[in-house]
């Protein structure tokens, strides 16, 4: 259950996920994330209703590269799976039509590769698509049906801001009072300590 902030109580008795603040707009959230990073906080998380350009690079510098392939392994995973699909598709047809069960029809070649292209193409797309989606789920650690942010009383509720920044309790600089001062200075409101479980 969410606990209102008590400034006098530095060491909270329950395990803490972090301190969450709401923001009015994506721009305010971006500014706040920058401010928190400049203040030296490294372990942060933000929750937004849609993808916000360049926010991830501030929250987690490993996302700060340019272009798709710098920020994610997914294009690589998809390409490799596409090639595997291509090889599987073509190999399956070649093996069955040339090696395993060759049939001569009107003297035509067994390895009639142009006729194998449509299935090779479809298998390429199929493998790539399936790998891209499951790759995304695995990298994101989904499905994970529960998460501490769901303890936040306003999370996902209509008529509340959906732009939430969390400074995590496992940040080396974290203390509730320091995080509170910072987030309030950065125009955050409805500050809530989110318990870990």
């Amino acid at each position, binding site marked *: 259950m969410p606990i209102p902030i008590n400034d006098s109580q530095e060491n909270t008795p329950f395990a803490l996920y972090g301190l969450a603040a709401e923001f009015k*707009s994506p721009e305010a959230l971006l500014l706040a994330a920058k401010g928190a990073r400049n203040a030296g906080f490294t372990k942060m998380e933000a929750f*937004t209703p849609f993808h916000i350009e360049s926010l991830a690079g501030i929250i987690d510098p490993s996302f700060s590269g340019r272009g798709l392939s710098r920020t994610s392994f*997914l294009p690589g995973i998809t390409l490799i799976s596409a090639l595997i699909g291509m090889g599987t598709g073509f190999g399956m047809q070649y093996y069955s039509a040339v090696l395993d069960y060759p049939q001569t029809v009107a003297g035509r070649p067994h390895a009639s590769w142009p006729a194998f292209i449509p*299935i090779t*193409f479809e298998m390429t*797309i199929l493998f790539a698509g399936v790998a891209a989606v499951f790759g995304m789920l695995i990298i994101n650690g*989904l499905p994970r049906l529960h998460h501490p*942010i769901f303890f936040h009383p306003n999370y996902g509720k209509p008529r509340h801001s959906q732009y939430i920044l969390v400074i995590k309790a496992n940040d080396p600089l974290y203390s509730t009072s320091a995080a509170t001062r910072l987030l309030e200075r950065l125009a955050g409101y409805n500050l809530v300590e989110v318990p870990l479980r």
Partner: protein
Amino acid sequence: MKEQDLSIISEWVLLRKKSSGFLGLLGLSSLLLLVLGLTVYYLFTRGVGVFGINIPVVWGFDITNFVWWIGIGHAGTFISAFLLLMRQNWRSSINRFAEAMTLFAVTCAGLFPVLHLGRPQYLYWLLPYPDTMGTWPQWRSPLVWDVFAVTTYFLVSLLFWYVGLIPDLAVLRDQTTSRLKQFLYGIFALGWRGSVRHWEHYQVVYLLLAGLATALVVSVHSVVSLDFTASIVPGWHSTIFPPYFVAGAIFSGFAMVLTIAVPLRTYFGFKHLITEAHLDKAAKLILVTGLIVAYSYVMEGFTAWYSNSSFEKFTWVNRALGPYAPLFWLLLVCNVALPQFFWSAKCRKNGAILLSVSLGIQLGMWAERFVIIVTSLHRNVMPSRWGMYYPTVWDWGALLGSIGLFGFAFLLFLAFIPAISISEMRKLLSEEKSDANTNK
């Protein structure tokens, strides 16, 4: 567009009592679904002889329906994938239901080759699997290519649709107060919480899927057209078929998008989300693809004449003047004449005209596939092999039944799943807001 307009999407699913019109449509489509069930039962117990097909017309309504349905699906993929890559932001309000349309249309399409098999219990012979007979599918046959093309199309469309749906299912999970709905939406939302790291990978996978699905937009109907072109039947053996089929597919698909969008706008209160601008753009796309289709009709006639093959020439003349001529002229009226209304901006904004033209186009595209299939087969090269095809009640049952299946699935989709992407619309809204702020 305002915040309040957006909340109607989730409210429609979670709170609104469904209107009697909605329930009436659901009842009608369930009845048609029963007709499909009865037809399939009768067909499977008696064999394909219950259809009107015969020698020489071995493909009738069943393959016509297959090509028709799979064509309808293409607009959904075109909207969700191709327009995303082209950064056409207006697609956000129509892509969700267009993708659902694709999914259900491909389901209906996939049904017909199976119904048509004769021995549907041996369906799995089309798939490569290690069987005790040591045989394999015939890889050089376009019919086997079709199995792979349609299966891939269905699976990739399903993944694309589901990935787009995950954030919206999470919204429904967080907004509903019903324990059961929280549980069910929660399971399917996979615990999505809008974490910024997740969004980053999500964005990448969505773009990748769009790229892959774009390849499918042009390839699936091309493979379907190869079912015809790879044969030497006059009227089928033509290199123009793949692009002609793809244009026809997008043409009929956008007609279906309008058939769905106009009532959604008028009766479901999505007026602020699906605007006149959307209808206008869909109508323009119909006009463009309609012109490509019209050009293909002209080229069919030209090639028949220019080939100097008496069989090709006869097939074309027989289409225009033979026993199935009324359907040929019907398709010209529906597919060539009707879309010309869309040159006028007034017609592109008038719901009644949009709806009637798009229904006319779907009728026309169905007639086109029927004419291509049946007229080419019924008077083939040998006059001793001439014959006629007349549909039986079971042919009609399968056609109407598949429309019932589509309607039933689509109405359930409307009842339980947000018909417009909430997260994409929120993003559009916030971008509009920040644009307005910077312009001040």
